[in-house]
């Protein structure tokens, strides 16, 4: 977690400046006074500034959870969230009756919310963390259908002896296809275009 040291004429001023730099509120901070400082004679001779250490005391996972919860509440989607943290990966499982609306066409709403959640979470972390939002095992189901699609299009590319371009997909979905076809010696995969329109190409090897 982020920590900075700040100085000021008084302890209060030092704390104030630290909070401003960290852009947090007093309740979200852990404050240690290193030196209370000294006014000195007439405020000139022998004065010493106050020094404080201020540590950000916000749990990034909780903030991210709160974010998802409040967004879903405002979309009238009641949800429960389960979270699993493994190293720098955070997995949130959203449990709800109305997941259809939350997932959207080809997962676009879920992907959008996922990238926003990642943004929120990483405001409070030192190390960059990757967020995965899942609802009703959507990611698993999507992975299975992408692998199927990959294999089907690979044989089509071979049969027709030409390249096949897939529709634009986010990087984590392209990765699934790349690795599904990595062992296939008859085809090669690569991506073209720039995000967010980057798309994968399956090319037969002649």
């Amino acid at each position: 977690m982020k920590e900075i040291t700040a100085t000021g004429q008084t302890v209060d001023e030092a704390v104030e400046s630290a909070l401003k730099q960290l852009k947090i509120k007093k309740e979200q901070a852990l404050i240690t006074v290193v030196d209370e400082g000294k006014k000195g004679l007439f405020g000139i001779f022998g004065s010493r500034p106050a020094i404080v250490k201020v540590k950000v005391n916000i749990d990034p996972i909780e903030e991210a959870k709160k974010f998802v919860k409040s967004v879903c509440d405002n979309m009238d989607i009641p949800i429960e969230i389960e979270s699993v943290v493994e190293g720098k990966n955070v997995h949130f499982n959203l449990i709800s009756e109305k997941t259809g609306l939350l997932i959207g066409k080809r997962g676009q709403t879920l992907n959008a919310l996922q990238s926003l959640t990642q943004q929120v979470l990483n405001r409070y972390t030192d190390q960059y963390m990757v967020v995965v939002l899942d609802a009703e095992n959507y990611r698993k189901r999507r992975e299975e259908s992408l692998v199927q699609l990959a294999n089907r299009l690979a044989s089509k590319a071979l049969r027709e002896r030409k390249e096949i371009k897939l529709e634009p997909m986010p990087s984590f979905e392209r990765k699934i296809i790349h690795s599904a076809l990595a062992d296939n010696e008859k085809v090669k995969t690569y991506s073209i275009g720039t995000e967010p329109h980057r798309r994968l190409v399956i090319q037969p090897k002649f």
Partner: protein
Amino acid sequence: MKNLIESLVKPLVDYPEEVTIEAVEEDNRIIYKLTVHKDDIGKVIGKRGRVAKAIRTVVYAYAHTTENKKVFLEITE
């Protein structure tokens, strides 16, 4: 709708108290005008508009279920 936009934008910015949303209703569309602190604009738009796009995706997904009119989200200074 305003609550949803607020809940999406406020956690992203450094000055949540300066987030304002104004709804302009026309015949067949509603435009939500979002303004944020000058220093926060970059955060709300993101690299190549990535964040703005994500915000719009969520907002429009909800708009389709509730509003009969077309909904737009404008980000202004």
